């Protein structure tokens, strides 16, 4: 029972962590909370369902399950990257030098817009993930574990390792780190800031799309408002680990997932959404820099 809850928590946490990475990377570079990031995740989940339905109709799923799943992930990632790019271009870039409140309000507006766009286009009813045949649960230490949960945890870890390598080993990753440290200075040494920011949004959106598709597979249905709560929770995870800090977001996501899963089963399932907010408020009061973050002082 406990072990199973831990695995559930880790799967949930992996999803939070993937979304949290998008928040934390954008915050690291723009010092902006990308409120609409949760909606990108929601769009990713919808695309997962729409694409898989399409492949099922075409007949690809029945014959080549793995291939069609790979295509679903890639297609969703491609679209979410395009949405993320457009989001940045339309709602944030024109406000790059505006008052602090402006991009924030613009982000909230974008989030509301995207939610309602999906609701109007796809209806407010739950969208159901097409049924696909999955292997039997694996028994580990006498506990049956869903293959999906293991798949989610493993995929997330692979993506996170990929991100880690990208940020620390590639030229573009180096440019990203430089931009996060000092945007103007990075611009002066020849880094194309706009390109770096666009890449950040693309990567964040791809990670969110993977999270979205996996959640759609896991729960079997999505709705247009899933991005809102997941977005806040992922943001909590990012803050918990220290916003702007990439390993922090991963750690925060897993911790939050565990707390929520254990809290829901041992304390109260009705109030499970409250745990995230209590953690958020607690962290912000007691350790605003987050677990792995440095003790940040107010920027003057």
């Amino acid at each position, binding site marked *: 029972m406990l072990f199973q809850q831990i695995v559930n928590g880790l799967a949930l946490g992996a999803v939070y962590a993937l979304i949290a990475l998008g928040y934390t990377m954008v915050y690291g570079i723009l010092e902006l*909370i990308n*409120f609409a990031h949760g909606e990108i995740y929601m769009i990713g989940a919808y695309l997962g369902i729409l694409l898989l339905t399409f492949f099922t109709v075409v007949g690809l799923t029945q014959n080549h399950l793995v291939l069609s799943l790979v295509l679903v992930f890639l297609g969703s990632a491609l*679209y979410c990257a395009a949405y993320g790019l457009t989001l940045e271009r339309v709602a944030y*870039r024109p406000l790059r030098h505006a008052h602090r*409140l402006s991009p924030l*309000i613009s982000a909230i507006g974008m989030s*509301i817009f995207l939610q309602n766009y999906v609701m109007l286009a796809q209806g407010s009813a739950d969208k159901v993930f097409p049924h696909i045949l999955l292997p039997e649960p694996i028994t580990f230490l006498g506990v049956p574990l869903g293959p999906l949960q293991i798949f989610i945890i493993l995929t997330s870890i692979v993506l996170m390792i990929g991100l880690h390598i990208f940020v620390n080993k590639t030229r573009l990753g180096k440019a990203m780190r430089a931009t996060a440290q000092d945007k103007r200075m990075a611009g002066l040494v020849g880094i194309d800031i706009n390109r770096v920011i666009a890449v950040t949004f693309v990567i964040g959106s791809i990670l969110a799309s993977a999270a979205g598709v996996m959640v759609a597979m896991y729960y079997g249905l999505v709705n247009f408002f899933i991005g809102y709560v997941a977005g806040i929770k992922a943001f909590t995870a990012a803050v918990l680990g220290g916003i702007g800090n990439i390993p922090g977001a991963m750690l925060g996501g897993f911790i939050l997932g565990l707390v929520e899963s254990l809290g829901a089963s041992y304390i109260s399932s009705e109030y499970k959404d409250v745990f995230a907010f209590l953690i958020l*408020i607690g962290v912000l009061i007691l350790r605003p820099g987050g677990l792995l973050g440095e003790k940040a002082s107010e920027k003057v």
Partner: protein
Amino acid sequence: MSAANRSIRFGGSDGRPASNLKTLSYIGIPVWIGLLVQPFIGSEGALALAVVTFLGGLLWRMAIRVSRSVQFRPQIGILLEETGRLIRVLSGWKPADRQRRALALTVTGAVLILPLVLNNYIIDVLTLAGIYVVLALGLNIVVGMAGLLDLGYISFYAIGAYSYALLSTRLGVSFWLALPLGGLAAAAFGVVLGVITLRLRGDYLAIVTLGFVQIVHLVLNNWDRVTNGPNGILNIGRPAFGTFVFSRPIHFYYLILAIVLLTVLAVDRLNRSRIGRAWIAIREDEIAAQATGVDTTRLKILAFALGAIWAGIAGVFFAAKFAFVSPESFTFFESVIVLSMVVLGGMGSVPGVILGALIVVILPEVLREFASYRMLVFGAVLVLMMIFRPQGLIGNPRRRVELQFQDEGRRLHMPMNGKRV
């Protein structure tokens, strides 16, 4: 940089000739949009949207060309200023000369007498508008004056409404006593939220207050013993004077009118007081304000409390008017609606906020057939206002300068459309 560079375009700031990019954007943007929406609305819808965007782009270009040749733009500016002035006059704001006073008098008369001949539906819409004016003015204290982005404002509205619902159904407390009590209960929660979020900067504050709405909503939904869960509380007592019971829409109309007037007076006084000036100082630069001796801690909490009072009062009125409350009336979306009123009208500007509230409530009623597009439009309005007119329809002049140029070192060198220097 040439004028061609001003066109909206995608892609990086590389050295491609601007004219090519411009031509590309004619086709490129519609194609891009069409591709983006295709999986969601289908091929036909996507094609239609792409064509509309393309034609819209053409029209936009033509409009710009025409406006350049006939000096159209300054005229639009004058038009907006004049409309703004007219509305300022109409709202009875600072009647400086005789004409303005006469106009103000006319409007006051119309507001007082006209509802006597209007039908109940219109009166109900106006009453609802009144509630939102109070809410928007209250939020304006927190967001517009003190510059604290509070997304949890609707929770105070909920607290006011549930205070009266419980006081009335459980204890039989009268509306008139509940009105200040509901306000105070909301203010108390405002202080709590203010203390919790004291150390947080703008964006963190927004998230925590967002969490606050969610917590309040969950508690209202799940604490069945007290709030009766999702079913809400029924049969809330109506306000009464002796034997006269407020029952018809018109009664509630005059009641909310009185509350609106009280709010406007109070908020206006507050705006011009020492406290109001201190809030503005905090909004413009918290550290500088602190350095000049403003007690930022106390004043930020005060802003939350004084903002929340109005939400509490509006909530009590809401519960009395509909005699029913349920958690569904107090969601994050309501917070966004109130916020869009403040942003649309002009943050920090009292007449602007009133106008914003009236537009946001009345326009969807007029355009009934587009009702489902309401939230979509509000979202777009928030984004577009921030990009094109951050000071709102009737901007507060000080706020306007502040919103346009604020970035250390780049102040005044940087046009607000965000091009790199």
